[in-house]
């Protein structure tokens, strides 16, 4: 995995050099996080590519609005979340599980157990299917807390709720994800 990451970072670094020097640092540091959020939130690689481009372009153009009160990562996430939500409202082309699907929630009654999976090329597809089955809020929370650079407080600020509320919703979101993920086998 480390080799894959190093290769990906190297490739990303090569592309970053295409950008003007003053923006390449921002892009190098955060493009993976923003692209991954867009990819798994929107569920479509092409839309995620478009969204990532638009988010960074918007960030660069609106940089005067960045007051340094939050980290650049948090600021970019805020732009990305708004952008992706707007896209979803416009597209209306996603096939999503009903958020209140009782069967899904009933299956989450058990304890949280480790996810043992076989790493295959289909892993990403399985993760996407499980995320697609979650309500948007839980999907977004899981994606944000999986970024180790963000604290629960920052995730709460990004999603308009307290850190405690984030913790509570995550508990349920994790169980629902596990149940949905198991269904993808």
């Amino acid at each position, binding site marked *: 995995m480390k080799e894959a990451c190093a290769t*990906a970072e190297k490739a990303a670094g090569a592309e970053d050099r295409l*950008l003007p020097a003053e923006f390449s640092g*921002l892009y190098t540091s955060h*493009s993976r996080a923003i692209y*991954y959020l867009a990819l798994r939130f929107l569920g479509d690689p092409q839309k995620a590519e478009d969204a990532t481009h638009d988010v960074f372009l918007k960030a*660069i153009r609106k940089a005067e609005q960045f007051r*340094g009160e939050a980290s650049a990562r948090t600021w970019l996430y805020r732009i990305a979340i708004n952008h992706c939500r707007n896209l979803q409202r416009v597209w209306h082309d996603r096939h999503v599980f009903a958020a209140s699907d009782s069967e899904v929630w009933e299956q989450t009654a058990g304890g949280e157990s*480790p996810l043992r999976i076989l790493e295959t090329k289909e892993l990403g597809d399985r993760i996407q299917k499980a995320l697609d089955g979650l309500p948007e809020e839980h999907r977004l929370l899981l994606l944000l*807390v999986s970024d180790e650079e963000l604290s629960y407080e920052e995730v709460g600020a990004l999603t308009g709720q307290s850190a405690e509320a984030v913790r509570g919703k995550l508990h349920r979101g994790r169980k629902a994800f596990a149940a949905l993920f198991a269904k993808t086998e």
Partner: protein
Amino acid sequence: MKQKLTTGQQQEQSAETRSEKTTAKEFASVEELLRHDAAQTAVPPEIAQRLRQSLEESPPPRRSWWRKLFS
């Protein structure tokens, strides 16, 4: 906030998985699984190229506040 990763690896012994050279991984949490997925996800190089093109067509103003982003 974040749990330390405790990923275990185990070679799958069954014939069908052996032939596919798959690796069994255990993730202690959903977040760990997603972090693994994110690490495996490459950012398409086209994004940087498109961004450069967009910036060339309409360059943003150069201002000192940029320093805040990188400080």
